[in-house]
Structure formats: structure tokens, C-alpha cells
């Protein structure tokens, strides 16, 4: 755990820079790149200067207005009668967040610029040459390789993951709903939607009922998928099995057909006119509505089994990949010590696989918790059961969210619910993750 130490050092450098910075470093703090020019590092100076100019242009032409719009969420109400094209609050919020991200990136470069100038000052004071752009580039491919490699992924994730999520969080604090949506102006409302979800008779009973089923679903389906996948991978890895690639083909085949097709296929299979009911009728029985509105547990059971069918192949593939990277010597040693096959499994295979897959186990739990497709395709969306508000008894929270927000425009309520879901899942999985060996002893197998 080097982290706290590193952080302390980090603050120390900031303090040190403030205390010891010479005039040239201060120049860099005023105009990016100026300090670098004064130390005769032209290439670096030009680079930083260009960043500064680009940032200024951005904020003068777009950024400042976008940030202001973020706070007001629009002031001009649209009026078709007078032909006034009003502000679109939703887009203003989005552009505001984008401007904040650009600002953060700019500040990062600004700090890097000062730190660089200070490093030059230190180098000169010690009688060394300041690092040139070429040196920096070389270090970017070597000890700072992570910076080069992570730059693009981080920007991409910021724009396409962080930004939408921040947007969604913020929507929860507005009054964006069926009555208030563009072109009507939206306003900041604080915690109003959260209070509605947890106390209002309309939402609260449905919420708690669905939450309970959602937890049961996530735990059961994750455990089933994980252990069945691991089991099958181990089975196919046995020495006596010939034609491993051939046998593996069958789960791969299932993996190859996209989920929604299989789900629709299963839906047809269990439908009234489907083959299973036809056989029941032929045997003299009565057709069963497996997926009917009142078929609570049979629909849930079918959901679990179908979900296994869909997800076992990928966990099998994963387990196969992980097992192939295991150290064979351990088994040889265990055999010499006379360990049984079962003992070998519990003492060698399982710890190794669990070590390598705990993070995946968590992400599978989350994926199952938020499995939108399964019941959406299996039962068709938009079913509404007795005692539920805009939901049915197999619906997971995510399906309810869909019904609320996309189908019925309860955006702020939907956003508030997704924040509650998030708080729950993140608390559970962060706890599991931090306690797991793959986080605490990352270097065990390295």
C-alpha cells in the first residue's frame, strides 16, 4: 500500500513549488509555456502555449456560455405562437457538463506545465540540463508509458461514460417529468424526487417489492452462471476428454447467437402455441401460460434457466482462458504429495480461479442485477401487474426504470431510482472487492 505515502508527497511538491518557485516558473503560471521559453525549451514552450491558446478560444467562444447555461438551465421559454425558439434545458445541461470536462483537462495540463517549469528550475540549480521534449517523449515510452497508453481510454471513458452518468445524476435533482420536459424549461429542485420515491404511496411499495426480487435474482443467477461455467471448463479440461475443441463448440454455438434472438426463441418455445404447450395439449393436459401476467414463479424460473443458457458459455470461455495460464508444476507437486483430485481442486484450482476472477464476479453480479434484456424480451415490455406501479412481478429495477423514464417520461424519478440502485450495488461490490485477495494481494501470482 504505497498510496497514502505517494499522496503526501504529491501535496509536498505543490507546497514546495509555491514556496520555492523562481520568476521563470511564475511566468509559466501566468502564461503556459513562457517559463519553458525562458529556459530555452522551445518545443515544449510552443506545445504548452498552443494548449493555452486553444483553451482560451474554447472558453471565449463556447465554454463560458455553456457553463452559465448549466446553472440557469435556460431562461427563454419557447413560444410557438410568437415563433420564439426557446432554450432546451436538457441540452444546456449536457453541454455544461462537457465544458466542465474540458476545463478539468485544461487544468491538468496547466498543473503539468508548472510542474515541468519547476523541474527545470531544480535541474538548473543542480547544474544539470533541463529535460528536453525528446527526453520527455522517451520517458513517455518507458517509465511513464502508462500515461501515453491511458490517455485515449481515459478521454473516451470521460465523454461516453462519465458524462452521461453525471448527466443522469443531475437529472435526479431536477423536476424533469411527464409534465415538465422540453420545450418547457426545467429547474433544479434538490432532493424532491428522492423523497417522492421513498415515501410516496405511488412509488415506494413497488420499489421495495422489486428491490427484494432484484437482489434474489442477482445472487442466484450470478452463482449459477459462475459455478456452472467453471465446472464445464474443468470438465472439458480433463485429460480423458478427446476433441476438446469440438465439445467446446457447442457452448460457443450458443454464445454465437445473440441474446435477443435466443430470448425471442425461448419466448416462442414457452408461448401458448409453442411446442411445449402443443405437447402438453397432445398428452391431454391444458396449455400453461408459462409467461403470463399471473405466472409469477414459472416466469421467474424460466428467466433463471434461460439466463444460464445465455451466460454460461462466456464464463466457461473465461475460465478456460484463466485455467490455461495456471502453473502446471503445482499439480505435479500435489500429485507427488498424494493429494486427491478433489483436494487439488479446492487447494489449487479454486483459489487461483477465484483470485483471477473476483473482479469479474462482481461485474457479473452487477450485470445480472441490471439485466434489462432477459425479461424485456422473454415477456415483452410494458406488462403491468396488480399491486405494482408501471411494473410487473418479474421486472427488475432496470425494467421499471425503463417503463418509468423512457415509456412514461418520469425522468427525474427514474434517475433518483437509478442513484439508489447504484448506491446499493456499489456498496456491496466495493466491500467484496476491497476484501478480496485479488485486491489486497495483487502480487500473489506475479
Amino acid at each position, binding site marked *: 500500500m504505497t498510496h497514502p505515502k505517494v499522496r503526501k508527497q504529491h501535496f509536498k511538491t505543490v507546497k514546495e513549488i509555491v514556496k520555492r518557485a523562481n520568476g521563470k516558473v511564475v511566468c509559466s503560471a501566468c502564461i503556459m509555456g513562457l517559463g519553458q521559453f525562458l529556459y530555452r525549451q522551445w518545443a515544449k514552450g510552443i506545445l504548452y502555449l498552443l494548449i493555452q491558446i486553444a483553451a482560451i478560444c474554447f472558453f471565449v467562444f463556447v465554454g463560458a456560455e455553456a457553463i452559465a447555461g448549466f446553472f440557469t438551465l435556460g431562461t427563454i421559454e419557447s413560444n410557438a405562437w410568437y415563433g420564439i425558439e426557446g432554450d432546451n434545458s436538457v441540452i444546456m445541461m449536457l453541454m455544461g457538463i462537457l465544458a466542465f470536462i474540458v476545463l478539468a483537462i485544461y487544468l491538468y495540463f496547466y498543473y503539468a506545465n508548472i510542474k515541468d517549469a519547476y523541474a527545470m528550475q531544480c535541474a538548473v540549480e543542480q547544474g544539470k540540463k533541463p529535460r528536453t521534449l525528446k527526453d520527455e517523449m522517451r520517458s513517455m515510452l518507458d517509465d511513464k508509458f502508462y500515461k501515453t497508453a491511458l490517455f485515449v481510454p481515459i478521454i473516451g*471513458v470521460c465523454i461516453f461514460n462519465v458524462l452521461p452518468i453525471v448527466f443522469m445524476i443531475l437529472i435526479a435533482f431536477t423536476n424533469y417529468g411527464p409534465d415538465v420536459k422540453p420545450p418547457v424549461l426545467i429547474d433544479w429542485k434538490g432532493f424532491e424526487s428522492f423523497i417522492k420515491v421513498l415515501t410516496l404511496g405511488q412509488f415506494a411499495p413497488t420499489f421495495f417489492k422489486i428491490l427484494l426480487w432484484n437482489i434474489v435474482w442477482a445472487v442466484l443467477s450470478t452463482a449459477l452462471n459462475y459455478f456452472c461455467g467453471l465446472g464445464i471448463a474443468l470438465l472439458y479440461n480433463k485429460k480423458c476428454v478427446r476433441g476438446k475443441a469440438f465439445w467446446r463448440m457447442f457452448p460457443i454455438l450458443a454464445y454465437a447467437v445473440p441474446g435477443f434472438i435466443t430470448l425471442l*426463441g425461448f419466448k416462442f418455445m414457452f408461448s401458448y402455441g409453442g411446442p411445449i404447450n*402443443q405437447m402438453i395439449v397432445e398428452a391431454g393436459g391444458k396449455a400453461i401460460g408459462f409467461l403470463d401476467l399471473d405466472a409469477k414463479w414459472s416466469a421467474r424460473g424460466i428467466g433463471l434457466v434461460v439466463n444460464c443458457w445465455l451466460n454460461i458459455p462466456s464464463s466457461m470461455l473465461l475460465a478456460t482462458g484463466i485455467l490455461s495460464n495456471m502453473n502446471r508444476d503445482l499439480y505435479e507437486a500435489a500429485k507427488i504429495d498424494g493429494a486427491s483430485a478433489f483436494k487439488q481442486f479446492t487447494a489449487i484450482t479454486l483459489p487461483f480461479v477465484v483470485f483471477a476472477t473476483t473482479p469479474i464476479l462482481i461485474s457479473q453480479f452487477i450485470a445480472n442485477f441490471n439485466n434489462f434484456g432477459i425479461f424485456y424480451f422473454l415477456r415483452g415490455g410494458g406488462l403491468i401487474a396488480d399491486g405494482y406501479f408501471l411494473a410487473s412481478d418479474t421486472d427488475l429495477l432496470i425494467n421499471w426504470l425503463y417503463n418509468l423514464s423512457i415509456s412514461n417520461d418520469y425522468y427525474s424519478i427514474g434517475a433518483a431510482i437509478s442513484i439508489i440502485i447504484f448506491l446499493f450495488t456499489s456498496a456491496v461490490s*466495493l466491500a467484496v472487492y476491497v476484501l478480496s485477495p485479488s485486491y489486497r494481494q*495483487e502480487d500473489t501470482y506475479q
Partner: protein
Amino acid sequence: MKHIKIRHTVDTVITYIIILAISLVFLFPILWLLLASFSRSGSLYSFDGFFPTEYSLDSFKKLFTDTALYNYPRWFGNTLFVASMSCLFGTALTILTAYCMSRYRFKSRKALMKTTLVLGMFPSFMAMTAVYLLMTQFNLINSHWGLILIYSAGAPMGYMTQKGFFDTIPKSIDEAARIDGATNAQVFLRITLPLASPMIVYTLLSSFVWPWSDFILPQLLLKEKDLYTVAVGLMSLGDDEFARFAAGSMFIGVPIIVMYFALSKFLISGLSAGAVKD
């Protein structure tokens, strides 16, 4: 000795029975869809139990020739383009991210790891609304590049699997190369990547399958019928077109199966076995 041999045989037989059962479970629904695609009537209700009463190749012929309303070949090409592009970019970004997270110790590392874990926990499609608005602002509605951008940018969020794998490759291999004078970039390209080939294959496959079979995002972003991906196109088929649906879904599996067999050789062998001598 004989006793052990019998036990061994029994074990083998049981193993094969289980394997057969598993194979059947996975094969059956696909076989059912396959046979349905050959049915003459095209409607599910004319079937006798699981199987159609009459067979013909009509629905396949219709699938590729009757393109006025449902242009399947076009959809297929669109999907192939989007999925392979996102697969390439996504895999590259994911592997890079996972490698850095596994091998470097830098100051914001643990914070980044926790942040990505936390971000992954948000119910993703509440964010869809925002993604849609963002794409309208960037003018990427009705564009395949918009989809590719979203898929590739989202891919590194799933780096954890790959990081777990890199964590299991012994560090002593890296150190040996460093002593021989390799830079970190060289270590990554020449040593870690070849060793990680099973994991790269897994990443390639999974980042191909996601865009290939995703339904929600293309439906949101592609409004013109000619730009549809197969998933959206098949969903737009009417109820009376079950055979065409089944026929169309058969071809969806083909690229993934081809990819699997092309790559399975790398998936199975663990190259780093025996690379380090203690």
C-alpha cells in the same frame, strides 16, 4: 492396478455422458431455430411439436433476394463493419488499459481502479438518454462511426478481466527483459502481448459479440432502414415472418463461429507455462 483402471473407465464414461448432455442442451434451441428457418409456412403455429411439417428453402431465398422492404444483406454488411471496427479499437484500448493497471504503480492508480468499478455499476441505459443527446450534438445520429465511437470508448471500462490475467503473468519475465535493456514499450509489445494471447482472443471475441448483437444502442441511433444493423432489422420483422426471422438469425452466428475457430488455437495453449524457472 485393475481397480484403478476400472475407476478410470467409469470416470471417463460419466464425463462423456455429462458432456453429451451439456452439448445437447446448448444445441437443441439452435437446432430448433435452424429447422424453423426451413419451414415452408413460416408461421410458428403450423408446427408439429418442435418441428415444422413441411420444409423448403423459401425463407432463405427471400432473405437475400426480397430486399425491397427488408434489406438483409445490407444490414449484415453494416453490422460486420460496426462490429469489426469496434472490436479492433476496443480490444486495443482494453488491453492497453489492463496492462498499465496491472504493471505500473502510479499515484492515481488505485483511485482510477475504484472509479471505474464504481462507474460500471450505474444502470447503463439511464445514461442512454444522455448518449443520444450527445450524438445529436456531435451530428453522429444515423452514422455507423457514432456507434463505433461509443462501443470502443466504452470497452476499456471492462478491463478488469484482462488485468486479472496480466496479474497472473510472472513479473520476473518483465524484469529479465528490462535487465537485457528493453524499454517498457518493448516489454509490452514483444513479451507481454504474445504471452497474453489467450486473453487477447477472449477480448477480441467479447468485444466483437457485444456490438454484433447489441440491440438498444443501434435502435436508438440508427433511424434509416438502410443503415440498420441485423439486430434492429430482425426486430423490425413482422409477426408472420417467423421463418425469415429464424433464417436471418442463423447467419448472425456465422462470423462468431468463424472467429472462434480461427482463434481457438491461441485460446487454449497457455504460453507462459514453464517460462520461468524457479
